């Protein structure tokens, strides 16, 4: 449980050598050691989705993922998804649709959508709702979030 060995993986394109004891939730490594702001602590229980990241392209809850679970994997967080200069289509869409109030859940909405749209690039509205229904939003921004994911899907299709 507490065995120490270096765990190697890639985060946002950079190699990481993580020396934390196995059993450490990945979220704390990403936030506190790599100083990434995207993944958020929401519940620590995998219930709300605020901490979502991509592990080998799959939307994953980093609060219940341990550092050793991502050994040799490629991790992408919102921080590495795009930038002001070169935004990901979903980031542009969330701004265009003003799909945030407090915005705390937005990381999870965007990252879950990236993972989902990779599997289904032309989703129906119902499929989008289903895909993010386990990501909680408390401000009631749901309608805008769905509109943003729709717009992002189109944007991603145009890019590819």
């Amino acid at each position, binding site marked *: 449980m507490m065995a120490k060995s270096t765990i190697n993986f890639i985060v946002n394109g950079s190699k990481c050598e993580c020396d934390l004891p196995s059993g450490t939730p990945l979220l704390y490594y990403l936030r506190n050691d790599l100083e990434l702001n995207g993944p958020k602590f929401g519940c620590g229980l995998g*219930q709300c989705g605020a901490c979502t990241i991509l592990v080998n392209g799959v939307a994953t809850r980093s609060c219940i993922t341990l550092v050793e679970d991502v050994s040799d994997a490629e991790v992408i967080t919102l921080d590495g998804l795009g930038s002001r200069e070169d935004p990901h289509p979903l980031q542009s869409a969330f701004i265009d649709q003003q799909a945030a109030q407090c915005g705390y859940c937005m990381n999870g909405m965007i990252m879950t959508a990236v993972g989902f749209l990779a599997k289904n690039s032309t989703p129906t509205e119902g499929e989008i*709702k289903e895909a993010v229904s386990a990501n909680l939003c*408390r401000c009631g921004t749901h309608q805008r979030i769905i509109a943003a994911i729709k717009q992002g899907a189109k944007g991603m299709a145009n890019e590819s």
Partner: protein
Amino acid sequence: MKADLNHDALRRFILKAAGAAALTMHFSFLPQELMASGLKSSRSLKGNSNLENWIQIDERGLVTIFTGKVEFGQGIGTALVQIAADELDVAIEKINLIVPDTDISPDEGYTVGSQSVQLSGMAMRQVSAEVRRILLERAASIFQVPIDKLSVADGVISDGSQKITYGQLISIKGDVVGNYKQVTVAKKAADRKISGRSMGRLDIPCKVFAEGAYLHDMRLPGMLHARVVRPVSQGGRLIAVDITSVIKMPGVKKIIQDGSFLAVVAEREEQAIAAAENLSETAVWSELQDLPDQDSLKFFIMSHPETEREILVDMGQEEISTDTKTYEACYFRPYQAHAPVGPSIGVAHWDNGRLKVWSHTQGPYPLKREISSFLSLPEEKIRVIHKGGSGCYGHNPADDAALEAAIIACNMPGIPIRLQWMRQEEFKWEPYGSAMVMDVRASMNKDGSIENWNYNVHGFPHSSRPSGKGGSLLATRYVSGNRKVTPPRRIPSKTGGLDRNARPYYDFKRQKITKNFIEKSPLRTSALRSLGAYANVFAVESFMDELAHQTGQDPVRFRLRHLKDERAKAVIKKVAEMAEWQEEREASEHMAFGRGIAFSRYKNIGGYLAVCVALNVDSRNGQITVSDIYAAVDCGEIINPDGALNQIEGGLLQALSWTLYEEVNFEIHKIISEDWVTYPILTHDRVPKLHVHLVDMPDAPPLGAGEVAQGPLPAAVANALYQATGKRFRELPIIEQK
């Protein structure tokens, strides 16, 4: 409505006057009568009456604006920038907003009650107009022309041939300082170019690109992580704790025990969590069985021996004509939680004889006074700086976490302390929205009008915000020294707490409104978005529907006949048109359809909202599907229409979640709602289509938009369910009692 975006507007400038590092900006909404004259000054200007408290312009012409209202995603920061840009005639990009900081910002108390545009916004408009006039006077004297010959475009003043910039005027004649003299009339609505038009919120890009918008993202050099260990029962005392094994755990730096306040500080966050869990296992607490039986909460509230009865309105109740028919009903709302997605957090640093506290509080100055009093530390030794958190929705544990972080930081001088509450703490230790019971009786005349209305509201306090006396926050109850818990604030009935919107906005011949206030709530309570309005309007608007149906009247026409205010009638008529209102019940093989309508004017002095909910009920399994929500809103002048829409949409959906699903569950010795499984909320797959219409009132005073939706929504749902099923739903949440 497509927003007009300004991604780069949030630049940081060096703060000339403050000398302090310009804080990453974040951004809050103005009393209605003020604007009508254009000269009556905003309440926020009292005590903050110097122009430089609000606006500073530097020699480059860059404008720094200050506010005491905090941004929590409601868009006040963007609205303030829009107002200043418009009134000063300066481009948005040249304006930098400073987040509330008790060392440099105006003290505007709390960011509450949907009043930030009315207060801070109108102060900003008035000061901007005055600053602009002073600069024009300076230019007029340099150009030797009358002031009315001058025009301004993006901070450049021209008389048609000569030009001078605001920056140049500042460098020649110095800063614009001095008392706001209330001599300048702000622009007419028709002359505004930026206010009244949708603009992308300035705080959103920073959040989309993970640039560290939240207090949760703050990392100070040498910062340590703290966790608090809580008892099982709310009133539990710490009997014994064995710290010997915990202190040896990896990374643990300190265990702080002060009476029943128990906290651990560690180098790393996960180490603090592990240590807190371990401490929790070794700690022995007294257990209290002091909560009521949840199943009989309604009876507990209605028969509470310490009820203070206050008659708010009494208009000849006893002289009821005998030729009337009387109806009655009783409604209930449980304790409900703020439940932001991100649990509360406080960061504090005792640094060189001064305590710095970063908080997502709604009131940086009141929090400073509370901490000062609690720690017996002079106010000047404390600086509270706002940084955004998750959600808000009223008085959540932001202030509790800030004080706890401050207590820990004072125990560890020189070391910045980050105290993150865990999910379970957020649910179990927050100050809930009060459970309430509303009973109402009305007598109807033969002509179908209401002759007499007798309304009773029963419940607990709606504000236990920091009072400045040092006894309002959670830690008071646990630290040693038998500290006195400050009694909750009595909210004057003009706006009301428990009694907010207890008075119907209708014109009834006779009415009697009684507030039955119980000061000691078994579960700690405070302000939850809209306070008592949510439950009072639920009761009033449900009962109006009942009376209409009992007397065979159309619920829309029934409301209209009892209203005098044309603006109220206008939103009801509008929503009926939007929803293609019809009274008839529709049904298909398994589905029963229903529509319900409700209306309120928030606080009876704020914004107007009428809502119509369309839903269907599957007779095979009782599943309720809300398909559409229509709302027509008149909130006076709107600064950022898309921002107001976002707030109203959010209010509708949050109220839908409260109404269908939400209830804090407890046993006699502890609270059992502790996560998203035990306290479920609305999810994407259950979200209806929203149709919101904003009434355009550019010349009217702003009335606030943040809470207008909370009141009418639950009754519209219950009324729609009645139409669909023929059954009245008088207790919330509705899913629980299908």
